[in-house]
């Protein structure tokens, strides 16, 4: 199993202001690289009260300068503005990250679609059309595109004639096939992931009890013959003592209040323990190992993206949880029969 850290969004919550939130991301990702995490992730949301990062590429680009090995996953919103902006950002980002980019487009929510003055009824089609443009733009060949929303090149009156009828987006990504994973946080995303045979990320909004059906549905719909990697985002907190939910439950629940407000989730956060039971990985290292093992045995998890930093959490608390996870939990999943002596240290 591979492990990721994030997604981060630099929300300003409680005593942690925006500037410190960005510093925490940077320091946490440097630590993650040293602990052997495989990936680190940044996300974006628009027009929020807590200052959620509105540009996942800008945040990830700063991380690229601070690290040299960890893969950097970006969760940008696709389908609102012209897709070539995202195509250019992603290609530039893959270059400045020296080929470490993973691009995982996610869906806009209602207030974002309205803010960009996009017709909500057209959004899903715009998302798919944008995805097609991205693949063309990142290819090694000049391209043209004619779709319901965008025509590239537009060949507008008054412009110098484009004699080739094509556009070449530059620079090209370093990676010959830029990894594209799709957020399966909405039905359209799951359907497109299966259609294109792309790895699907199931997120925090999907409880453990709902995962099996969604992955089975992917398998039934896809033409892909080699098994697609299964990517899961989970809220993770590791603590050696006490009742760990007391240390992070409020911040954990706060995320789900946001999801409900944004229309990504319909549920109740009043019983934090019940909410956590179906979707959080939490406890001592032994308990956390057991919870991940259960998920893995049920679903076969390839990449577990761990959201270990809850907005407002102080940095030392994050370091403690990450360090326990990196030292006590991750090695167990490198090999199924790892000798206990190695875990204990010899």
């Amino acid at each position, binding site marked *: 199993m591979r492990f990721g850290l994030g997604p981060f969004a*630099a929300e*300003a919550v409680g005593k942690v202001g*925006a*500037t410190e939130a*960005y510093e925490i991301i*940077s320091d946490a990702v440097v630590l993650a690289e040293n602990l052997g995490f495989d990936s680190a992730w940044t996300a*974006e949301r*628009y*027009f*929020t*009260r807590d*200052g*959620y*990062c*509105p*540009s996942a*590429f*800008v*945040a*990830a*680009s*700063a*991380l*690229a*300068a*601070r690290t040299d090995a960890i893969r950097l996953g970006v969760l940008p919103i696709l389908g*609102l*503005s*012209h897709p*070539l*902006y995202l195509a*250019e*950002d992603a*290609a*530039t*980002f893959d*270059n*400045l990250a*020296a080929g470490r980019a993973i691009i995982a487009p996610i869906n806009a929510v209602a*207030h974002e679609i*309205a*803010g960009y003055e996009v017709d909500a009824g057209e959004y899903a089609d715009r998302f798919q059309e944008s995805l097609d443009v991205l693949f063309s733009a990142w290819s090694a060949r000049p391209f043209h595109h004619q779709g319901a929303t*965008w*025509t*590239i*090149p*537009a*060949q*507008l009156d*008054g*412009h*110098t004639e*484009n004699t080739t009828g094509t*556009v*070449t*987006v*530059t*620079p*090209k990504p*370093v990676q010959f096939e830029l990894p594209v994973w799709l957020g399966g946080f909405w039905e359209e995303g799951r359907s497109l992931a299966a259609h294109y045979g792309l790895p699907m990320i199931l997120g925090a909004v999907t409880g453990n009890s709902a995962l099996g059906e969604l992955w089975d549905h992917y398998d039934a719909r896809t033409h892909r013959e080699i098994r697609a990697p299964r990517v899961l985002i989970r809220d993770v907190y590791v603590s050696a003592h006490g009742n760990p939910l007391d240390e992070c439950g409020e911040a954990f629940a706060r995320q789900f209040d946001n999801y409900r407000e944004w229309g990504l989730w319909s549920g109740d956060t009043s019983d934090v323990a019940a909410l956590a039971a179906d979707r959080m990985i939490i406890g001592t290292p032994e308990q956390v190992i057991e919870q991940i093992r259960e998920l893995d045995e049920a679903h076969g998890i390839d990449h577990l993206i761990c959201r270990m930093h809850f907005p407002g959490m102080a940095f030392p608390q994050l370091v403690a949880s990450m360090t326990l996870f990196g030292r006590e939990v991750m090695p167990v999943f490198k090999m199924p029969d790892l000798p206990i002596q190695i875990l204990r240290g010899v």
Partner: protein
Amino acid sequence: MDIGIGLWGMQSTRSAPVAHATLYRRLAEDSQVAEDLGYESLWLTEHRFWYDGYLPSLLAAGGYMAGATTRLRIGTGCLLLPQHDPIRVAQGVAALDQVSNGRLDFGVALGYRDEEFDGLGIHRKERAQRMEYALDVLAAAGAGRPIHYGGPVITPRPVQDPVPIWVAAVSDAAVKRAARRGLDILLSDAHDDQRAGELVELYKKTADEHGVDSTNVRFGILRYVWVDDSAARAEAEVVPRLRSFLLEQLGGWRYLSDENGNALGFEQPEKLRMAAEGVIRNNAAIGTPDTVIRKLRALESVGVNFVVARSHLVSQTPQQLHHAMELLAREVAPAVATTRKA
């Protein structure tokens, strides 16, 4: 006079090809060198759909610079604002100013290549009105106001209040646009000193007419600058590189005009060569520290108070670049800073 260093466009040209990932790694290294030498800022430049991989995503590259440095300011010189979605740009500006803790100098220009507008489905003829609207959106975002009545509030607000906006001032209209808003300006490397002075005066006059205080406005200019201990070596090593660079871009993009205002391209090689020669002989500051100091003081005398020194000429080695940057910082910058204080 203050000095920023420029311009990084991440180009792998026919005459000086380099892997793009290598160019970006050098951007981080060059930024750290600039920071250590005490430069105020390092400036990026944007174009798109061009064979050499010219940087199309300034804000992402700025995020990378932010991660590589702690004090150096990050200049966009310039982001082609009318080619973008103004909300998306304002969001990127906010994110970059946050991730850099208030180090963004946001320069914007109209853009002029038809192919760039056309690829994005935007009419070039609408660029001036798109510029005005986008500047309104940026102002609203910076103030935490809805971008228009009933529109969204862009979040978070930038660290700086406000983020300095520099308008590329190529024409009288652009200078007036900046002056009405009291924004900083960046004059072109195609303006000679006299023309630069006229545009500074035009700015001040326009600002007065609109009741805008121009006391603290930064009148910046782009200048090709190269400092070497030996004038002969500077001439021999840098002028041919600069000439080739100018001819390729000016010819390919039809940026300069002839005396009748017609765009110059490869089809008029002799006029193109003369235009490039004019930039090199009249506007560039290439030579010993004394020569460069004299040229910068001449600019200062016509009212320019900031220079983006274009020492990054694409084709020189990092060692050559860093040496020239060091001489500019150590031998030239203190001398021109003193003239301001005197």
